[in-house]
């Protein structure tokens, strides 16, 4: 196949990718988006295999078979609760591929590498390797193979910044001196170490942001690889991936009222170490499943607010059963999702969809908040900080300014919770002491099951 026709196939693939993302804007067209993306990808791969440079196919065949098998097995068997882990792994694979190709290009072309190419190659390898180990670390934290709490030590930022500065220094030196082969492995090692160091001080609650940032890095390293190989479709795909990751991390940061630098360089847990020592015993109203079921039965509108705790308790299906039971009694049921519910952007929506909650029953924060004042019951299951009114009112609170779901504006608030222990961030939740709030102590799945049973008994 001629070079020009291959370039046209790549252009076609790039257009397919843009269209694929365009169709992701609605659930009704999204699957069409996958299809057009697959068509673009298949065309690009076939055209590449027909390139004149590609002369031997045995290793390609082996790698394609192994890769396709692993990819398919992961796609079929990975549980939906493990989606963040899978995404973290795929960032790692994508970044590794980019970094390895960049490395090979360096050794093949040195010492004759033009300055611009060397600069993007250096940036690409640096980003690729740091995203590789960074994503593996994120995977480890999400899978709880390594401690999810922030690991911090004195002078950490100084150490990290020196590692990064050294790596950048090597890239800068290599631009006019691409023959200094011996520096390249040092660059790779520094980047690998920096990736580990970057994620070490970040706590589990920040994972949605971190995954989005790593997504952005993986995209950028892909785009840089496109410059190295002078391949436009790589630049397009990398730019789309990079901007998507960047946009999502901005959304996540905004939803947590944090800045990028704050996520990356400030461990969240440290803020309130002095705080909660003096908590006076305040009365809370605790309710039984029977009472709760009665109130729910009499309600006209109920908003269920699920958090990641719901998924941990594997109670998504029970939540859907409760919604169905209430729906059958003429109660209007909605689900309200905070942007950072779950461990990655949009995670909670996927978990509810898996439990067969229809997506037009699921509302995001901005569209549901005006509805709380008109609703009879807000039922909070496994969510904590994102419902804390202190974020609106208490300037001293570490989460002050964070946008929250205004559950306290509902007529009655029910909170399903194991105990009064403060949540992940260790912050007291004012909501639990509100006189409108009824605490339902118990495990999420068990409590929802009881509520469903109570409701069906009431009908008999």
């Amino acid at each position, binding site marked *: 196949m001629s070079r020009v026709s291959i370039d046209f196939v790549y252009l076609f693939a790039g257009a397919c990718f843009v269209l694929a993302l365009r169709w992701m804007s609605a659930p009704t067209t999204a*699957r069409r988006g*996958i299809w057009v993306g697959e068509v673009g990808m298949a065309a690009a791969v076939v055209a590449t295999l027909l390139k004149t440079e590609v002369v031997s196919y045995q290793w390609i065949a082996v790698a394609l078979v192994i*890769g396709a098998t692993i990819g398919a097995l992961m796609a079929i068997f990975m549980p939906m609760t493990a989606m963040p882990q899978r995404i973290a792994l*795929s960032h790692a*694979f*994508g970044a590794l591929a980019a970094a390895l190709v960049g490395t090979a290009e360096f050794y093949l072309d040195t010492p004759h590498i033009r300055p611009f190419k060397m600069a993007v190659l250096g940036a690409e390898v640096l980003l690729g390797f740091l995203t590789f180990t960074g994503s593996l670390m994120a995977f480890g934290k999400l899978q709880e193979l390594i401690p999810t709490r922030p690991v911090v030590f004195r002078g950490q930022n100084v150490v990290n910044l020196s590692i990064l500065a050294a790596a950048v220094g090597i890239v800068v030196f290599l631009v006019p001196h691409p023959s200094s082969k011996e520096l390249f492995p040092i660059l790779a090692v520094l980047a690998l170490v920096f990736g580990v160091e970057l994620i070490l001080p970040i706590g589990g609650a920040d994972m949605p942001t971190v995954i989005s940032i790593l997504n952005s890095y993986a995209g950028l390293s892909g785009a840089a690889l496109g410059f190295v190989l002078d391949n436009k479709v790589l630049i397009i*795909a990398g730019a789309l991936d990079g901007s998507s990751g960047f946009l999502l991390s901005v959304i996540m940061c905004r939803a947590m009222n944090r800045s990028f630098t704050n996520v990356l360089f400030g461990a969240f847990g440290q803020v309130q170490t002095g705080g909660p020592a003096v908590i006076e015993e305040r009365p809370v109203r605790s309710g039984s499943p029977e009472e709760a079921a009665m109130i729910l039965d009499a309600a006209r509108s109920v908003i269920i607010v699920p958090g990641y705790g719901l998924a941990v308790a594997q109670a998504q299906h029970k939540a859907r059963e409760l919604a169905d039971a209430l729906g059958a009694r003429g109660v209007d049921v909605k689900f309200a999702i905070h942007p950072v519910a779950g461990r990655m952007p*949009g995670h909670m929506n996927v978990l509810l969809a898996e439990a*067969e909650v229809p997506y037009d029953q699921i509302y995001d924060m901005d569209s549901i908040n005006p509805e709380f004042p008109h609703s009879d019951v807000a039922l909070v299951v496994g969510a904590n900080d994102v419902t804390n009114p202190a974020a609106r009112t208490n300037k001293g609170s570490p989460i002050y300014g964070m946008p929250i779901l205004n559950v306290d504006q509902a007529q009655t608030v029910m909170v399903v919770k194991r105990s009064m222990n403060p949540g992940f961030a260790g912050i007291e939740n004012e909501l639990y002491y509100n006189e409108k709030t009824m605490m339902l102590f118990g495990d999420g799945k068990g409590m929802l099951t009881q509520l469903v049973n109570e409701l069906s008994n009431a009908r008999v």
Partner: protein
Amino acid sequence: MLTRVEIGLYVFVLATFLGFEVIRRVPSLLHTPLMSLTNAISGIALVGSLVLAGSNRGTLATVLGTLAVTASTINVVGGFMITDRMLRMFKRRGERAPREAPSDTSREPAQ
């Protein structure tokens, strides 16, 4: 006449802006499938890896190329498949077919 580098920069900048505009319209409902789809798409690095693995430019290139092909194929195949698996679960009210019946009957017995 533009150099290759300049054309590349044009493409990069325009594609980034296009990306922002397109992705801004994706509702938060679909953010997880979005991320998994962009992952699959950025597996296009596969085309670079294929050339490296198949062009007989020495052992190093073949080894690194083969590893890179494996890694990107995992992303491409796995990414498209799992995105589809997720999106198949997103249903509107009423689209949810036969599951209604058993949960209804389960209410009656026991008592």
